[in-house]
């Protein structure tokens, strides 16, 4: 799943740096991801994993690191399967 997330970030986060060089806990905004790019990433995650982010999870923090994105996606994928 982490590879899929990195791949989506590569395609949609518009980072000025190589996604492979970004660590799990690195701040993606500090790495150059704008709020608009975060929205693109979020839409791509929803499409790819067939999930839906509820309002409460649409926060700055949800997309601020690969680790946070992973946590959010895992939670939504699990809830979806129930």
């Amino acid at each position, binding site marked *: 799943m982490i590879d899929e997330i990195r791949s989506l970030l590569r395609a949609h986060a518009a980072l*000025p740096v190589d996604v492979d060089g970004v660590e799990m806990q690195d701040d993606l*905004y500090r790495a*150059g991801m704008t*709020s608009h790019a975060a*929205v693109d990433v979020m*839409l791509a995650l929803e499409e790819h994993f067939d999930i839906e982010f509820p*309002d409460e999870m649409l*926060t*700055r*923090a949800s997309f601020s690191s690969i680790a946070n994105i992973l946590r959010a996606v895992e939670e939504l994928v699990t809830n979806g399967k129930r």
Partner: protein
Amino acid sequence: MGNGEMATEFQATKVHNAIEEAHEVARGPAAEHAEDVDRHSRFPVEAVGALKARRLLGAAVPVSLGGLGSSLIELASIAMILAQECSATAMTWSMHQIQLACLCRHGHSRALARYIQRVCENQLLLASATSEVGMGGDIRKSKASLVLDGDKLILEKRSPSVSYGAYADGILATVRRNSSSPPNDQVLVLLRADDMELKRFAEWDALGMRGTCTEGFLLRARVQPDCIFPDPFERIASQTMVPFSHLLWSACWAGIANGALSRARALLRERARKENLNSLPLVSLAKAYARLQSTVTAIKQAAELFERPGSRVLGDLWSTSVYFNSLKETASETAVRVTLDALSICGFAGYLESGRFSVSRYVRDALSAPLMIGNDRLMSSNGTLLLASKQEFDLLSDR
């Protein structure tokens, strides 16, 4: 009477006082000099002096740190009261409160906390330098960065619009974290008078808001490391700066609209004494008041929701961003519409630059609202965020 009751009564007195004091400043020096402030594009020194004398600059700061502990609704009330008489006084005071709110909510360092106390003790005035030449009005990107020069951190930035910068004791400026940071990796820094040098490169001569003295400055400053806010600017912006800005600006614009309508009402009242008024201007007046009432209610609700613990309107949510952008857009459009309605009602007397029923200045001031920040930019942002969310609008239940 127990301690709890006394404390409540004291607090209630403090609240009542702040609003009363604001009324007195508004009716007094703000009203007295508003025309001159506008005509000569000069800073409202008298009214701001009165605000300082009455300790109103510390309104947003908790009582424990030396401020008045005003709630967001009280802040909005004061902004609106001042704006009815002088937009420059209201905007200056409001923008200062916004900077103070950033300090109070994100100033997590000894130096920043101490500065808050100094602001209250000495009634210091704080300005904001978020704009930058070449950034096209986008305050979420910076070109200038903090630069290490030996053991000193230096900031050098060209800000085209620093309201009342020449009159401020301190400035909160955005800047890139360091010279290798991407444009949106910004920090907020406090620049105190002793640390900085301002060189004006652009004067202020505008259609309205003429007393805000929103000049362009080259800022050169030495930045103390403990004057750098620890939170990234993006977080300070979404949690505090944007909600407070949109709320207090909207309150100012509502005050401007209220001031204009008040004159229209006074004119019609006087005419009604001498002649039978045809219903047209009365209907126009009533419709304008209805519009204004909607906006003022929206401001009040926004303030309540934002401050209520457990509320869904929290700075971190994308939906909150949408909410405050919407409030700002509505308030700005209403202010323009209502002041133009007042002009239409007042007619010739309204069109003049002075006189009891002049609303020219109100119209000109209101016209700044859709531009500050550009509504198109905000609505474009909202459009994108609204695509992201699937939830339908459910603010009445505030679940």
